[in-house]
């Protein structure tokens, strides 16, 4: 192929205040191909695409579209250049109809009615052509996530985009929905459209893309033909060194049952049942891993056990029932009972970003007797000393109790949370996404801590969307789909494929049938 590249980026740089999100990035993408971009959390993928889409302004660099230098000053210019983007977080107006969302910004004139009429016709046309069916008159808030994504794609197509950027489109989709998405993408590629696909999932990259670029810490580390690479190489490029996929650990020695969960259900404030009659138990000295696509009830399970939301059913800790709805159903009561909780979202839940590190080390445990000076006041000096000790032990860098949480890097923030929870010496540790957005060194460290806690005879409930992490840490694996436990497996008796099917809601029997 000798035609001009559909997209060419030269020397793109972008800083957000002190954070250098993109550093001198150059890539070129051929027309009619699917180009993958992978990279760790925070590598700068979304930023780069947002620059291409005119959402952010680059500090330096040039953009060429079909060989022509383009001045993409805002999204309008990007749309005019034929670029469409489906953001990681959808940009839809929840209480507008599908139709209104589609015409928004692409109206034909000052009056709405002709635009809407035209869009309705065009929409029917697009639906037929690409199998993108959605009811134009439904409100967005009444659509499933998968359908909302279709609206986003339709928005781009309606604007005649022939370059389509998708930012982590499958993170929120079921495997079936994801498969359908990839069929649509194939169709679009056949039409000659150029697609940029951002994802964390190596399988998707291998299956669908023609070429792939790897980003790390704001820089583009490599661009290769998909056919000429393999997942191991990509993973290595992504994190900058060989990944230790296997965690070293001794076999579990489970003892008495610590946690018993029977028929636990959670209904959210919209009345949707998020957790459906879940039953499980964990014994002392074992790690139960929960696998599943994000949004299938794992968060609710953690939250109800951690006392953040209420639920129905029975939960026993060391044989005594926990209060699930009443006065003692909050996080404080859970901690008092010996449950520690590393939440999935450390920035908005696990830490108060504006608090000093020493305040965060007391966060949740601020009623502990050892932190009190007297009946009235807290003992801040003791707290700071305690923090210093924890920071040294967990190798938090920099080891300064006075620093505000927001001024630590993600991995060190996570270490503070993990230190706080593990050092409490709980009977049960709930730990969600322990290594999300954490660098590889910290991952290893945190994994080691989890195993050590297990070996001290504690029960651990681990939730992670990283299948690798689940497989390598857990002593037993439960798979959740749509609020239910689809099945339990032992890591040594299963493989990613089987788990993947369960995660998609396909049970073994169905699979066989």
């Amino acid at each position, binding site marked *: 192929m000798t035609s001009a590249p559909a997209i060419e980026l030269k020397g793109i740089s972008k800083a957000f205040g002190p954070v250098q999100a993109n550093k001198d990035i150059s890539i070129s993408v051929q027309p009619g191909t699917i180009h993958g971009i992978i990279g760790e959390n925070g590598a700068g993928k979304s930023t780069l695409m947002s620059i291409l889409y*005119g959402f952010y302004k680059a500090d330096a660099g040039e953009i060429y579209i079909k060989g022509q230098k383009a001045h993409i000053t805002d999204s*309008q210019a990007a*749309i005019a250049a034929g670029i469409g983007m489906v953001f990681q977080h959808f940009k839809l107006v929840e*209480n*507008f109809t599908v139709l*209104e969302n589609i015409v*928004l910004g692409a109206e034909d004139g000052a009056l*709405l009615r002709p*635009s809407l009429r035209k869009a309705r016709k065009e929409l029917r046309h697009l639906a037929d052509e690409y199998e993108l069916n959605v009811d134009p008159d439904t409100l967005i808030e009444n659509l499933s996530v998968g359908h909302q994504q279709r609206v986003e794609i339709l928005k781009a197509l309606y604007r005649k985009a022939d370059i389509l950027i998708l930012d982590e489109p499958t993170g929120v989709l079921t495997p079936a929905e994801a498969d359908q998405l990839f069929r649509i993408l194939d169709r679009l590629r056949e039409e000659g459209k150029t697609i940029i696909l951002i994802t964390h999932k190596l399988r998707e990259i291998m299956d669908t893309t023609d070429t792939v670029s790897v980003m790390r810490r704001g820089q583009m580390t490599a661009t290769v033909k998909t056919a000429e690479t393999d997942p191991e190489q990509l993973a290595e490029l992504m994190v900058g060194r060989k990944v230790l996929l296997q965690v070293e650990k001794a076999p579990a020695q489970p003892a008495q049952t610590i946690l018993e969960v029977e028929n636990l259900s959670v209904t959210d404030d919209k009345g949707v049942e998020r957790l459906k009659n879940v039953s499980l138990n964990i014994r002392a000295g074992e790690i139960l891993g929960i696998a599943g696509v994000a949004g299938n009830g794992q968060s609710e399970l953690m939250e109800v056990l951690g006392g953040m939301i209420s639920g129905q059913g029975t939960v026993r800790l060391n044989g005594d029932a926990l209060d699930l709805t009443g006065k003692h159903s909050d996080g404080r009561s859970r901690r008092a009972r010996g449950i520690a909780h590393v939440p999935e979202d450390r920035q908005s839940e696990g830490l108060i970003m504006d608090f000093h590190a020493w305040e965060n080390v007391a966060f949740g445990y601020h009623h502990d007797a050892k932190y009190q000076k007297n009946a009235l006041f807290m003992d801040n000096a003791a707290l700071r000393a305690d923090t210093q000790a924890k920071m040294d032990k967990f190798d938090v860098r920099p080891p300064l109790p006075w620093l505000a949480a927001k001024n630590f890097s993600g991995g060190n923030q996570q270490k503070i949370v993990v230190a706080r929870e593990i050092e409490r010496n709980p009977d049960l540790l709930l730990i969600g996404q322990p290594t999300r957005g954490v660098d590889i060194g910290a991952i290893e460290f945190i994994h080691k801590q989890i195993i050590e806690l297990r070996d001290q005879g504690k029960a651990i409930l681990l939730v992670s969307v990283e299948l690798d992490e689940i497989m390598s840490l857990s002593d037993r694996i439960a798979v959740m789909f749509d609020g239910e436990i689809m099945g339990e497996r032992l890591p040594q008796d299963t493989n990613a494929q089987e788990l993947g099917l369960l995660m998609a809601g396909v049970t073994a029997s169905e699979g066989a049938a």
Partner: protein
Amino acid sequence: MAFLDLIQLFDTTIRLATPLLLACLAGLYSERAGIFDIGLEGKMLAAAFFSAAIAYSMGSVWMGLLAGIGISLALSAIHGLASITFRGNQLISGLAITMLAGGMTVLVAQSWFAQGGRTPSLTDDSRFTGIELPFAIGPSEAEAAGRPLSQLIAEAGPLQQIYSELISGHSILVYIAFALVPLTWWVLYATRFGLRLRAVGENPASVDTAGVSVVGLRYAAVMICGVLCGIAGAYLATALQAGFVKDMTAGRGYIALAALIFAKWRPWYALSATLLFGLFQALELRPDMIENVTGVAVQAQLLGALPYILTVVILAGFVGKAIPPRAGGQPYVKER
């Protein structure tokens, strides 16, 4: 209670509801675009003063109206600067603007006219007077007949009473205010601008990624708000009254805000809400009417507080739920 009494009560209601309606619609544009505005009161007050001051000094009420709109726009620009450009706290900005207007009007009025913070009374050309609609019994008929207008109307048939007393005889600004209701509805729901305006108040990122300027839309909304507050203020000082006195808005901006919540940010509901609150104000002036009808004397203080109490009740969700535009009050930040 006689029919005519009722008509007259409603007539008063219309006059008193007009500034509330204008301010309420002003707030509607701004808040629908996601900019909360508790500074309606201040903008009205500043506009009231400047419209009266300019109308007096130039002898033209239209110049006064323009001046009122102008000063209100200037305050809107400050609000826009604070809440859009500098992404500050919209509530604090609104509050500061109201205080600024409260202080500045008196300060300027005192140094300009030296009449203790008021403007001189406006005479005929420098104020809006009632418009007599065709076929209505108005002052000219009264003059011709040489009898008081009230008598002529009392003798007319009920339809003519409604027409002459209730519908005819208001100042042009009243008719403009009422015409603004369907206009606002149309703008909001039938035009491109309206779609974008509503979208920017719900999810500004959706507008931004659609290639439309969030800042531009929000400024436009804030400016429309300024224009309407300007008219509201000018109405107070040059139509309802003939001159400015200190603090003459007397909390109307806040009542309008209450009405806006009551109206769930919708134009037709805004009309009903402001008419209701206008009726409360009218009844406050006619305690005899309530007493005649209900047989109990209602405390004037209670009537005065009713709009606020009702708003709290509505806000508390005991009677229908008022959900504000989702992005309301939050500055749009795309880069931290």
